[in-house]
């Protein structure tokens, strides 16, 4: 538990108590599910963006493939959470291996473009072939089971499922960041060539970072149909990747916690604004511009401003 620290444990304890809040409705629990899932995926992306300095425009493909892995199994009567997540790890792992092998051979914008191109190929495949439902995707999935008899059927249970995923993913990210491997990633971000002449096989390290990030994202994707009961190609659209990136930026690059907050903030903002107006993206865009202009370190950067004021 020392990897997490008492503050993180306190936050998780508070999050665990959320369903107990009086007046907590089904709607808010599912919104909380979406917020935490989005936050966890933004955090996984942060491992790549914030720590390794690689911007992936293709994380939606990892996410969507994970969702399809669950949906395909469930459609065939497999309802076990473990089987679905395991299958997602295999599918996303194989795909990520190919993408990261080719993408990490290139730097900067080429890495971003390659991840985007691969993701678009996957999107197009699922969108235009009828095997997996075409543009409708796979709908009407049953509830998942953790153990025989323990079915994830209520919003509260779904919420705890995503909370468990977030906790595990966060612990993994913390361990990775604190390890020697994590130091090398930061070294690569700061200067790739320096890391190379110190004896690090930089593309292999980048590939490792990609794989961890992709697998965590894929598992997040695998959990999504357990709440929504469907998987559609839209989950793989590049705008989804863009929203992950935006969430990382809102929260604060290279902080892990920031992107979780950013993802949750983005999800809730989108939900709230879209329930009021149709042209909600204009509002969200405005909010993002304000954040980027006035909080370049993201929401988590506010912490520093306040602590500096308190010190002064």
């Amino acid at each position, binding site marked *: 538990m020392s990897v997490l620290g008492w503050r993180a444990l306190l936050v998780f304890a508070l999050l665990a108590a959320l369903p107990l809040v009086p007046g907590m409705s089904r709607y808010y629990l599912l919104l909380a599910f979406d917020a935490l899932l989005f936050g966890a995926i933004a955090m996984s992306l942060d491992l790549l963006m914030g720590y390794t300095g690689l911007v992936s425009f293709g994380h939606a493909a990892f996410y969507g493939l994970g969702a399809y892995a669950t949906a395909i199994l469930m459609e065939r009567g497999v309802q076990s959470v473990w089987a679905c997540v395991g299958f997602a790890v295999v599918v996303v792992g194989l795909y990520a291996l190919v993408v990261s092998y080719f993408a990490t051979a290139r730097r900067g914008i080429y890495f971003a473009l390659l991840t985007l191109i691969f993701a678009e190929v996957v999107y197009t495949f699922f969108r235009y072939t009828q095997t997996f439902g075409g543009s409708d995707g796979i709908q009407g999935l049953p509830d998942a089971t953790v153990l025989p008899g323990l079915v994830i059927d209520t919003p509260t249970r779904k919420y705890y499922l995503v909370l468990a995923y977030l906790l595990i993913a966060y612990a993994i990210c913390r361990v990775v960041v604190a390890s*020697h491997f994590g*130091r*090398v990633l*930061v*070294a690569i*971000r*700061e*200067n790739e*060539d*320096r*890391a*190379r*002449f*110190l*004896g*690090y*096989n*930089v593309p292999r390290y980048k590939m490792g970072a990609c794989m961890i990030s992709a697998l965590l994202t894929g598992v997040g994707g695998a959990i999504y149909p357990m709440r929504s009961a469907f998987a559609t190609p839209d989950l793989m659209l590049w705008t989804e990747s863009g929203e992950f990136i935006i969430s990382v930026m809102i929260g604060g690059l290279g902080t892990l916690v920031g992107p979780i907050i950013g993802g949750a903030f983005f999800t809730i903002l989108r939900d709230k604004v879209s329930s009021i107006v149709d042209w909600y993206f204009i509002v969200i865009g405005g909010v993002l511009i304000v954040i980027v202009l006035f909080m370049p370190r993201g929401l988590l950067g506010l912490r520093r401003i306040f602590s500096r004021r308190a010190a002064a």
Partner: protein
Amino acid sequence: MREVHAGYGATPILFGVSLDVRQGEAVALLGKNGMGKTTLMKTAIGFLKPWRGTIEFEGRDLTRLAPHDIARLGVGLVPENRRIFPGLTVRENLELGLSAAPRRSADLRERRLAAVFQHFPRLRERLDQSGKTLSGGEQQMLAIARVMMAGARLILMDEPTQGLAPAFIRHIRDMIRELKRLGVTVLLIEQNARVALSVCDRGYIMEKGVIVFEASSRELRESPVTREKLGV
């Protein structure tokens, strides 16, 4: 190094450079700006592939190896402008240096750290400070300490005294002597011929991508060629 030709894109920079550094020697590579010294260094560590010619280290051909493989063979680079990792602490910078060591262990790390602190007590004081808070001289120390952590047997240094205060220049000079005493081979690239020749056994002068003169340090110090080519 034999007849090495190299360059960037279609632009040739090195026109058949040959030089030898024998084990345990400190050799200076002198020359003015833009004569190809840094290009030579980049080619030696594998960032640039030579167009022609061979580069060998302890009997192994380096020409086809990637930089990280060359580093693991025991070739360390102290690059120009003290390129440390500014966002990492001194300790993290040092520990990253260990990568090139074949078998990384906690024991080895402690021993190497102890050795580094013996030479650079100042780094111990700054251990948990981030790299960017160090002074120029301290960053240079850190860059040298980092290759010592790796246990490099051949260290390539690119302009280590550039922009440093005289006290630090002396310190770097002592450091190179110390490396030599430890049996490490040094190839020192310098514009500051006085400093370089005071620690090195031999020197080469490079001009427009070729070696134009080679002699012992003593001869170089007295030779009119040095004055003519380097303007000192």
